[in-house]
């Protein structure tokens, strides 16, 4: 029973095989042993003393004269074989094993001297063992025993063989994820659980994790770090533990760190992993990370060309609501690996930073990848739809948006599309979307309100009245709409298309523009504008521009530039405006619209100086409205003129505009992010 002596010696203090294994009581008849029982002599252990190794009582010869222990040739056979075969790893392990077994024994300096009393059959057996031919070794032993009844294998050979088979079986079971079997084999073969088999200890720990016995797994890792000396195995142990153990346990394991000869901690190599762990913890708790850890990981993330650390930092800064820095890290990650994760992170950072249009573009290719990705995409869509000033949404983009909203049956987004359509004058579309929103969420009062407004604009009297009646006891603002359609005082937009009188003629039927007289064309143009068909109106107004009448030409130029404006074609609108002499009032009105559009366009294109110049020019004609003030604030912020930006936003905030408050926050974030960048 020598292996038990070995294992007790190797176990040292603080660990016992049973303490690892006792978790699964059903597997063991022996009770859990505490630390001291590991020191017990073997024969006192229940269950082992009577085991059937016939040669268990044999021991090495003690040479009284020298105090040196002389080992029998059988004891040395393994050593001899490994020395002969040049298997230095096994040789070293065998020497260690013998030394643990016989502390008085010193290995011969000249291993060649071991060649004495060679036994080729025995060598063949050790060869089979070394090559993992365990079944073959069993055959050789059995055959020799039968041939020579006086012969018995070296006492450690059968033990080694049992252990090696158990080890192989444990590894097989571990591969097949039969974790109970892994634990059972370990329990039945405690001699496996030593520093000579760190791989087995890892597999056992893994089995414990899988069987939800985290503490047992920790014991196994702890045992390795307390007792085992191979540096690479120690480091791997910490690495494995980091992946599976709770934080507090890892801290305990790290406390077992040893110093290397150069004075550095041995876990320096995994320090980066530990720092990552610390950042990941901060991310989880939403707390600010240790600045040293952060600096270290930022340095690594900058230097390497993989995306993992960049992603970690992206998420961390996102959690910290530092959107600009988060955006930078996700962009870096995405450059290194165009992953879905990087895209999602970037999208969320952009949404956070108020760059909804960019966010939508980043998230669009992934919109249907998973439920989470759809939710992120819809968040970007919501942000776009809620943007002031309204941005023109490209038809192809709109198609994706509609698909995503439909798939998610997101009433909130449907309602927002409704508002968007309503505000760009597409009342019919707006009504449809409000209706959809209500279908998905019948209690959506805001959608009902939107639908009421759209129906009123469409003059769908009976639907309007039914709706208002249906909601009036639940919504004061809908109730207040009652009767408003009858008054025929459709709200007039600033651009003054309410020339209903002029455009009374019917323009539903298609007429080729060339067939129209200039006067008829002008009338039809306004009609088309009222029906929100600006594309056709552009062509029709073009016919009217050929009129002899100065007034008609002026009206046509005005109409065409409005049509272009509605189409989002700012430059064309300003060209059109020059084609007829207009009244000063109209010129001013048109000019103001053009300048607003141009400022927005410049901002969107990232031309902030131009944005400010345009806004300044516009301010000469008219005091700036809220939406344009916001635009100005963000332009300042983007140019790094934070104080100017804050002045604008704070003014808006103090006047009660929540967008102003958001602007203040955004500016601070932006400034912090930038300074971080410069600092790096």
């Amino acid at each position, binding site marked *: 029973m020598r292996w038990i002596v070995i294992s007790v010696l190797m176990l040292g203090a603080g660990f016992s095989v049973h303490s690892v294994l006792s978790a699964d009581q059903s597997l063991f008849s022996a009770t859990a042993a505490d630390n001291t029982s590991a020191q017990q002599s073997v024969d006192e252990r229940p*269950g082992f003393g*009577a085991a059937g190794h016939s040669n268990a009582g044999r021991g090495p010869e003690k040479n009284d004269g020298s105090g040196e222990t002389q080992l029998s040739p059988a004891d040395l056979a393994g050593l001899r074989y490994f020395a002969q075969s040049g298997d230095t790893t096994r040789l070293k392990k065998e020497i260690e094993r013998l030394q643990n077994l016989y502390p008085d024994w010193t290995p011969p300096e000249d291993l060649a001297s071991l060649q004495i009393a060679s036994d080729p059959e025995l060598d063949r057996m050790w060869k089979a063992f070394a090559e993992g031919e365990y079944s*073959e070794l069993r055959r050789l032993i059995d055959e020799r025993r039968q041939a020579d009844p006086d012969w018995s294998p070296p006492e450690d050979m059968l033990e080694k063989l049992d252990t090696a088979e158990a080890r192989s079986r444990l590894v097989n*079971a571990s591969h097949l994820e*039969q974790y*109970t079997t892994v634990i059972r084999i370990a329990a039945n073969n405690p001699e496996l659980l030593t520093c000579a088999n760190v791989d087995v200890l890892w597999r056992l720990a893994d089995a414990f994790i899988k069987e939800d016995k985290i503490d047992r797994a920790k014991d196994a890792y702890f045992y390795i770090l307390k007792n085992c000396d191979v540096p690479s195995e120690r480091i791997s142990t910490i690495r494995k533990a980091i992946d599976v153990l709770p934080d507090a346990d890892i801290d305990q394991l790290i406390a077992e760190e040893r110093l290397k000869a150069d004075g550095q901690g041995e876990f320096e190599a995994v320090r980066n992993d530990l720092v990552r762990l610390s950042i990941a913890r901060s991310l989880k708790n939403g707390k600010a990370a240790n600045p040293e850890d952060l600096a270290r990981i930022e340095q690594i993330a900058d230097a390497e060309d993989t995306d993992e650390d960049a992603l970690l930092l992206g998420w961390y800064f996102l959690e910290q609501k530092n959107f600009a820095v988060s955006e930078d890290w996700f962009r870096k990650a995405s450059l290194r690996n165009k992953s879905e994760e990087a895209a999602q992170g970037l999208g969320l950072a952009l949404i956070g930073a108020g760059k909804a249009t960019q966010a939508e573009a980043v998230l669009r290719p992934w919109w249907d990848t998973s439920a989470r990705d759809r939710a992120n995409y819809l968040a970007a869509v919501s942000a776009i739809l809620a943007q002031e000033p309204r941005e023109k949404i490209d038809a192809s983009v709109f198609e994706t948006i509609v698909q995503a909203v439909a798939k998610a049956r997101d009433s909130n987004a449907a309602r927002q599309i409704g508002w968007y359509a309503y505000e760009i004058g597409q009342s019919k579309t707006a009504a449809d979307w409000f209706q959809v929103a209500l279908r998905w969420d019948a209690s959506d009062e805001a959608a009902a309100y939107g639908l009421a407004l759209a129906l009123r604009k469409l003059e769908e009297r009976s639907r309007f009245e039914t709706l208002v009646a249906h909601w009036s006891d639940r919504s004061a603002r809908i109730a207040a709409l009652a009767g408003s359609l009858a008054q025929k005082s459709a709200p007039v937009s600033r651009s003054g298309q309410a020339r209903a009188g002029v455009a009374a003629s019917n323009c539903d039927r298609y007429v080729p523009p060339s067939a129209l007289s200039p006067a008829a064309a002008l009338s039809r143009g306004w009609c088309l504008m009222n029906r929100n068909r600006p594309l056709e109106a552009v062509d029709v107004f073009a016919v009217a521009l050929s009129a002899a009448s100065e007034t008609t030409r002026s009206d046509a130029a005005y109409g065409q530039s409005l049509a272009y404006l509605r189409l989002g074609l700012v430059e064309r609108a300003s060209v059109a405006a020059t084609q007829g002499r207009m009244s000063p009032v109209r010129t001013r009105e048109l000019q103001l619209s053009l300048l607003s559009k141009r400022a927005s366009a410049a901002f969107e294109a990232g031309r902030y100086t131009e944005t400010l110049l345009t806004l300044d020019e516009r301010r000469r004609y008219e005091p700036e409205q809220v939406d344009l003030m916001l635009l100005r604030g963000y332009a300042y912020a983007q140019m790094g003129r934070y104080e100017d930006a804050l002045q604008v936003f704070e003014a808006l905030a103090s006047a009660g505009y929540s967008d102003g408050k958001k602007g203040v926050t955004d500016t601070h974030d932006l400034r912090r992010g930038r300074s971080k960048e410069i600092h790096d």
Partner: protein
Amino acid sequence: MKKGASGKFAQWIVSATVMLSSSAISVSAQVYEPQPGTISQAEWYSYVSRFVTSSGRVVDNENGNISHSESQGYGLLLAYLSNDQVTFDQIWSFTETNMRLRDDGLIAWKWDPATEPHIKDINNASDGDVLVAYSLALAARNWARPELEVPARNIADAIALNLVFQHDGKWLLRPAASGFGAEDGKDGPVINLSYWIFEAIPVLAELTGAEHWNELSNNGLQLLQEARFGADMLPSDWISLHEGVAPAASFPTDFGYNAIRIPLYLIRAGNETAGLLEPFVKFMGGPDRALRLVNVLSGKQTETLTDPGYVSIGAALECIFEGKPLPDDVKTFQPTSYYPSTLHLLVLSFLAERHPVCL
């Protein structure tokens, strides 16, 4: 670690009286425990050289050289019957190390040299488990190898716990730990009567002390009386107990490669009752010296097997019940393919011990 033997195996012959309640007949059967040395060295070595690798793997050479828990179990039983401890230890070493890995202590049913990992499906096959536990127990007591009793008992316990189950008041054997229950298919539970290795059941009963083994035997015999399908009154390989007793529709409804073992297992267990064996004697004997496989529903022949190993079962029945001597090429053993050769040695070993006159 190996534990001391309790040495409680002393009985060499277990007698069992079987009451077949449904048919109201009673069958008295003696269960013999087979002795080592009933397969000659020459026969056994020719088998080993063909089907057992030096790593202790018993190879099904007609099935992509895979091993089954069944082939390992047969290998162990044949090694025991050949009194070959050396090969027995090798086969057990392989089985234990590479296949007996399931968390419940049972054996994975298939080991394939061509795949990595070699085991792709962790399910078991109950006949393999029974054969292995039985062979280990025989070896433990007859070779005075108490250390083999430990795994024998562990596997037998696992069989009792995971595979023996009750349905409609009857104790039955699942074909595998998963996949054949009432919840697994339209015609579940599905059983396979050739997994009832009757000779093993009393031995397993002794190992575990569990109380349902005897009923398992009895219910198997009773089912054999009921599972007489078609004109030939033969059992199908797979039988549904969903409603009554019927060929399982989710499998080929054949008297096939599985069911041909049933009469062999009956006679090996000492159950040489004409009433139970009659359909097999009628169908498997005959002058054409070929074993026919049929669809029990249509009566249509699916295959004709002429390997002496397959033929040996019917020949043994004819010898026992009709006194006809075995044909010469069935009397002697030549290895052909793993499965028929295995059956052949089991037949020869049995006849050598109990009907030497047939040889």
